[in-house]
């Protein structure tokens, strides 16, 4: 198991390298010159050349990549072109906010999905099943920026129960003052994973219940609770795999929802960086998000292997 873990971590290194190359290249392949965003349109040719040299943008691309990578490895993502602040500092603050939102939404979605999916699978073909499946389809299909706005209209504008903007005053803390800011975006973001997990868990539970070993377990006189434990342990690897991937998407994919709720996370940061052509921010954020995704995948694989003895052989 230890050997397997080490090998899996080793495999992640080339993936990380490839990801960073893609992150670096993407920004340069995209049309538009970052200098245009910094300098006024009527800047002289010398100024442009000077600034270009200043940011290292005059060197050949491979050299730029090498320099950038060398800095990144040391945790130096450079300074934002737009506001001259350290990208690393900005990233830490934004990523932690996104992490809070993403894990809350993912946990919420996971719990709802497991309960609904488990019930739907156990009572297949009944009204419970149909209700859960309808919820799942609805959850996956509804555009979440739209859902976010609807929630704002209902709970912030009409009822005035919850705030609609920002992550609360000052630094984050787990108190009601801050949590009330978290509720609406977390619910909005949890709908897609909840739907996906519902569908997955339902399918897995239906399959497990039809397996021969369930008859064996019933034949041993096990009670319903013990049977449920068996079903859960068999379903866990699949459910966790789906959840891990969803958490990855949530870490990077909440641009729209973070913008709707003005949640100061990586999504909002990316959104601004794109419009300002803020290359260091863009590269840094994309890279960090991609790395989180790679790390989450690795983690899911390891947990799955720990849960399912059949996967330990390779």
């Amino acid at each position, binding site marked *: 198991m230890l050997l397997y873990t080490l090998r899996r971590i080793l495999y992640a290194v080339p993936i990380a390298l490839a990801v960073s190359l893609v992150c670096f290249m993407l920004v340069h392949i995209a049309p538009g010159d970052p200098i245009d965003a910094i300098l006024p349109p009527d800047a002289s040719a010398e100024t442009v050349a000077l600034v270009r040299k200043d940011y290292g943008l005059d060197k050949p691309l491979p050299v730029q990549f090498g320099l950038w990578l060398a800095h990144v490895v040391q945790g130096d993502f450079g300074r934002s072109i737009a506001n001259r602040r350290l990208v690393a500092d900005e990233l830490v603050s934004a990523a932690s906010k996104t992490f809070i939102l993403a894990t809350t939404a993912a946990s919420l979605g996971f719990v709802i999905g497991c309960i609904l999916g488990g019930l739907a699978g156990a009572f297949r073909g009944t009204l419970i099943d149909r209700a859960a499946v309808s919820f799942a389809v609805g959850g996956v299909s509804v555009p979440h920026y739209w859902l976010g706005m609807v929630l704002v209209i209902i709970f912030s504008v009409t009822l005035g129960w919850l705030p609609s903007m920002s992550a609360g005053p000052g630094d984050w803390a787990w108190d009601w003052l801050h949590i009330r800011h978290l509720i609406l975006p977390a619910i909005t973001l949890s709908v897609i994973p909840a739907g996906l997990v519902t569908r997955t868990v339902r399918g897995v539970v239906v399959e497990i219940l039809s397996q021969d*070993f369930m*008859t*064996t377990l019933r034949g041993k*006189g*096990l009670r319903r609770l*013990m049977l449920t434990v068996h079903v859960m342990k068999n379903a866990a690897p699949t459910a966790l795999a789906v959840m891990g991937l969803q958490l990855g998407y949530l870490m990077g994919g909440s641009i729209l929802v973070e913008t709707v709720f003005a949640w100061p996370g990586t999504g909002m940061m990316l959104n601004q960086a794109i419009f300002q052509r803020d290359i260091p921010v863009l590269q840094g954020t994309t890279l960090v998000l991609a790395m989180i995704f790679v790390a989450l995948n690795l983690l899911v694989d390891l947990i799955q292997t720990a849960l399912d003895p059949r996967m330990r052989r390779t």
Partner: protein
Amino acid sequence: MRDDLLVLARDLRVKFTTGVNAVNGVDFDLRQREVLCILGESGSGKSVTLRALMRLNPPTKTIMSGTLELGGRDVVQASENEMSDLRGPFVSMIFQEPMTALDPVFTIGRQITETILRHENISRRKARRRALELLELVQIPSAKRRLDAYPHELSGGLRQRAMIAIALSCRPKLLLADEPTTALDASVQIQILLLLREIQQELGMGMIFVTHDLGVAGEVADRIAVMYAGRFIEEGPVADLMRQPLHPYAKGLLGATVHEGSRGKRLTTIPGAPPDLRDLPGGCAFAPRCTEAEGACLAHLPELRTPVPDRAARCIHVDDRPAAFGERLAS
């Protein structure tokens, strides 16, 4: 009722909501230490009969009727809780395919101890010790190590031994075996059969064994019941039935199998196919395939006839006067 009676079945019927009449009136008794073999081809209802004894057929899709008692307790009417109390300490089952019948993500040891802990009020440590004894009883080599093994880490034969150990974990009075050797290599088959018979005698269990293999039946059974279209069409002591089957279907089965009496003879086949269990003919279900069939066969379902004590067959050609039976034997 005698208290060594393990199973009492009278006109037991199992119907599925899909319209399939899997078991259509089965009568039999099983006493302690007795081994009954239910013989039949695929779809004859033998596995369903076996599962019905533990009420393990899918609960929402099965309709059971008739009388079925396990050790005097009514299985047809019992609540699910009462049934689950019986499963394990009174009756347990060995399944055909040990790969799919064992939970892949629990160790063998855990699958044994959870059964013990469910039914008996003993400590985890004691349960584990019993699990180890059970693995030794079913002759699994290096049993201690296998306790922590997962099913996929064992060979087919060992897996089936582990399955037997699980079935024996609460010392049942009645052991049911659903083709326990069919999925195994021929050389492993005989080992498992011998092991089962040995353990059955050692623990004094009653056993019902379902198979489509006459050789297997001859190896383990005291009595054989031949099943066709959800009914026992013949029942009797193993030696008598194999030497001189009464029912044309049983004759056909023996004629189609290699066994001791068939040396030098050509193997024969039974023409036709088993009937559709959704829409059974009114009379003898075997009549359409039977070479001896006549009009009367299709008119009514033949009664079970008893030509000699202890033997019975559901065929109008069987003479139930003992004298006539003796004449036929002589001729």
